[in-house]
């Protein structure tokens, strides 16, 4: 009897997990496996053919462009991540600890999401007329007498790329941090205050450690989004900068699928390693 029951629970366990596993296998594992397979294939001008050759990887690792592009991708990632973290944390902190009523917290939180009502690309492109040579930013600065010549580096530069990334992805930092902050027991803060801690000490000794999982989840969002991006870099740098995503996009456009697949595999591994390192700092599962 007992044995039977175990079998049926194991069975129902498998069955319950089956739909999700099937979806994941079909739409995640198989496509990735396909990309890995194709990355060893060969290509001609207009077709790809099955083969097992290391050409694509060899070309990738031989080319100095690969290294400079990966370096640039990391640069964009680190800088954007740092800004997103500082701004995201500040906003979340304000919402969680300075706004007193739940109604206002929710209202202000929703306010943060308003930009998300329109498309990513449109929000990004709208910076172009703003930052341009004859754009609003330059015109205002000139009429205020702060500069005589328009600032050229505002648009089509690395500055513009990072600005767009920060604008697009800060909310991904705000949401998880706000979420963990809301769960912090307010009596802990009072206890710290009673024990004589200053505001800064409360922040560093109580709030930050307790908000770590949120920070880490937000960071994973931002890092993966920035590392996988190609369109923001293309538009905001006026095609003058490249990150790994653009390398892949160019390859695809020129029918070099195997080469694109090889670059994707290397990018995937890089992102996984980065996230692996990040997860060493915080055990998200335990903290949730």
């Amino acid at each position, binding site marked *: 009897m007992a044995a039977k029951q175990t079998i049926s629970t194991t069975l129902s366990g498998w069955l319950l997990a089956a739909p999700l596993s099937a979806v994941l296998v079909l739409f995640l594992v198989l496509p990735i496996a396909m990309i890995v397979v194709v990355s060893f294939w060969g290509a001609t*001008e207009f*077709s790809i053919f099955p083969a097992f050759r290391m050409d694509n990887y060899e070309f990738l690792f031989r080319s100095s462009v690969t290294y400079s592009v990966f370096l640039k991708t990391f640069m964009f990632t680190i800088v954007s991540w740092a800004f997103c973290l500082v701004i995201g944390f500040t906003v979340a902190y304000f919402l969680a600890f300075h706004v007193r009523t739940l109604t206002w917290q929710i209202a202000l939180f929703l306010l943060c999401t308003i930009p998300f009502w329109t498309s990513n690309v449109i929000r990004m492109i709208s910076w172009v007329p703003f930052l341009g040579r004859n754009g609003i930013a330059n015109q205002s600065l000139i009429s205020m007498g702060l500069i005589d010549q328009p600032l050229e580096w505002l648009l089509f530069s690395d500055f513009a790329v990072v600005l767009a990334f920060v604008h697009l992805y800060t909310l991904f930092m705000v949401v998880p941090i706000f979420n963990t902050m809301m769960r912090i027991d307010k009596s802990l803060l009072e206890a710290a205050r009673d024990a004589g801690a200053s505001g800064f000490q409360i922040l560093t000794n109580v709030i930050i450690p307790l908000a770590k999982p949120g920070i880490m989840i937000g960071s994973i969002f931002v890092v993966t989004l920035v590392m996988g991006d190609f369109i923001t870099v293309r538009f905001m740098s006026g095609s003058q*900068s490249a990150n790994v995503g653009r390398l892949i996009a160019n390859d695809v456009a*020129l029918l070099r699928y195997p080469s694109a697949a090889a670059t994707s595999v290397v990018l995937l591994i890089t992102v996984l390693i980065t996230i692996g390192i990040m997860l060493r700092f915080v055990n998200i599962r335990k903290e949730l």
Partner: protein
Amino acid sequence: MTRKPSSTSIGRRALLKGTAATAGLAIGSGAVTGFPTIWAQNIKDVTLRQFGTGVSNLNEVAEKVKEDLGFTLEMTALDSDSVTQRAATQPKSFDIADIEYWICKKVWPTGNLQAMDTSKIKNYDKIVGIFRTGKLNPGSVIAQGTAPHTVGFVEGPGSTKFADNESGWMTLIPTIYNADTLGIRPDLIGRPIETWAELLNPEFKGKASILDISSIGIMDMAMVCEAMGEITYGDKGNMTKEEIDKTIGIFTEAKNNGQFRAFWKSFDESVNLMASGEVVIQSMWSPAITAVRSKGIPCVYQPLKEGYRSWGGGIGLSSNLSGIELDAAYEYINWYLDGWVGGFLMRQGYYSAVPETSKNYMSEDEWGYWFEGKEAKGDITSPQGQVIEKAGAVRDGGSFEERMGRVACWNAVMDENQYMVGKWNEFIAA
């Protein structure tokens, strides 16, 4: 596969209706503006799927086809890279490919397109010499690059080998072509521009742009490097590795010195860069100039002493086409060359493959302005009715002969294409 039933249905209808219907058709066909070879009934059910670049995939054309020929033409507009990709990899997804000649060179060997019998093309003899013998006039010199006539014919049906004469089997029916040069903002430059070399003139530091489509961009680069006297090419349309290295090297250096404001990939981007004044000199396409001008911003398609970089497109038939669809496709091609489309395209600043038929669909003033390079007598409007030029304006570069007679090279695909693409990626990432 799905085409079979419709071709057998001709047979059935033909049997049912017999000769009486043929007589009826002959009368009915008068309404179909003189293209009476197919069953008016059946052709209504035909849908041809055409794809190509935005320049000639116009909804107006599809509407007019429905009106004149009765069948449905579905248009899909893509960028040149996607067009190549689709023609090469998804032969079942289209019936008619509207592609450029250099794309044809790349795609033809896949066998996804079928050659066309020129004896079925009514206006074949009137097609401009460029597409048949390579020469505009008997005395013209053939330009470098993938000149259309070199990939315009194959040895016979089913052949994948290009013929070097008018073999009677055409790969693409030429539809649209033009001579490209640099676009400038005369108000912001304030002095005459005469050579391609000006693109890299330090005077325009941070205000220049070039297009980020490798196969076309490399040609513009070559025009510039040659004009600067830095490189003399054997054939700009088929460079050696050393020539590619050197060309890209010169531009990489310019890029690192901040010569370029941005690179553009789509038509709209080039319009915005120019209209906003971010860029004052750049590679540009003719209708983009028109778009900038129609905003009231001065913009000139500057003729340069080294000549033009030219391109041409045409429509090719999918090898999957047969039976009534194939007949419909021939009808479509004949209609295309009959003049209405030509007139429509020429009023946008392109040229038609059979200019003399287009003339019938243009006013004398329009013909004079667009084709003959004469001063406009009245307002010149776009096909959509927008005023582009006021009376007294003259087309940049002048007449058809002056412009197409000064082509220095054609858009091309090189033997070292893969190498060039790799180098191009390095240039963008540099």
